[in-house]
């Protein structure tokens, strides 16, 4: 099984890096959809089947915390897994996200194996069910 992932970050370059890191990680990725902030993410959810969201926290217009609040208030999206990739170093803020229902977070800088381990855990995958790193577009 592969997963459709929504990448939410206001940096176009960081979205590209996350997409390439996912491909290199061995995690089974179906389609990658991109959004530049929380509001664009909500629009993308309305038009695409998404299995998992990877989001930044600090973004203009609608930040990652507000996005999570909106998702948890919506019956359609309240159980959608959301994982943060962030530079946030304020532990209280990170714990607040977990309390709101975030499934985990990865601090930048990150390594492909860290992403794979956390996402496999969040999606309930065993290590054997993941692809070998580099099997899929893994020229990173």
């Amino acid at each position: 099984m592969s997963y459709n992932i929504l990448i939410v970050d206001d940096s176009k370059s960081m979205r590209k890096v996350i997409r390439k890191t996912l491909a290199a990680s061995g995690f089974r990725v179906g389609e990658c959809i991109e959004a530049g902030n929380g509001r664009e993410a909500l629009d993308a959810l309305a038009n695409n089947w998404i299995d998992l969201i990877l989001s930044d926290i600090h973004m203009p217009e609608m930040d990652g915390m507000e996005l999570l609040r909106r998702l948890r208030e919506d019956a359609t999206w309240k159980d959608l897994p959301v994982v943060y990739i962030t530079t946030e170093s304020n532990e209280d803020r990170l714990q607040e996200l977990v309390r709101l229902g975030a499934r985990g977070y990865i601090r930048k800088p990150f390594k492909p194996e860290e992403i794979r381990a956390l996402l496999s855990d969040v999606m309930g995958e065993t290590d054997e069910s993941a692809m070998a790193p580099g099997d899929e577009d893994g020229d990173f």
Partner: protein
Amino acid sequence: MNPQWRQAMKTAISEVLETMFFAMVDFEGEGAPDGGCPWYCEASIEAAFDAGKVAFFFRLSEDFARMATAGFLGSREEQVNAEEIEDAMKELANMVGGNFLSRVEEKNVRLGIPTFRMAPAHEGVTGADAEMLNLYCLGDRVGAAFLERR
């Protein structure tokens, strides 16, 4: 400046550059140890915490900014454009700032929004409480990082 901060700054810069930009730097090498070179670009970010504010500045040569951006994006150096360099250098400031703050014992930290400008002038980071680290890559001076307490 607090020696713990200086070490945290070095560790943050090395870890971010090596992990995300596939670039390695040294902090000691040949070349003038001052901030007066006409650098290609500057990326900066401010952080606040209960005890005050700090700002990080990176002033970099074009060759290094281009090489680091190519490493970050997995592209070839000659394919990297100005917009990508700006985006990547903002991320560099953002990640180093966040990494640094996770290493120092400050309460209630808040990281600002990174900024970028071309051909920076020399004002702004010459205060008495500013720390500067020269950055060298393969023996060449490729830039300088500043941490200014505000």
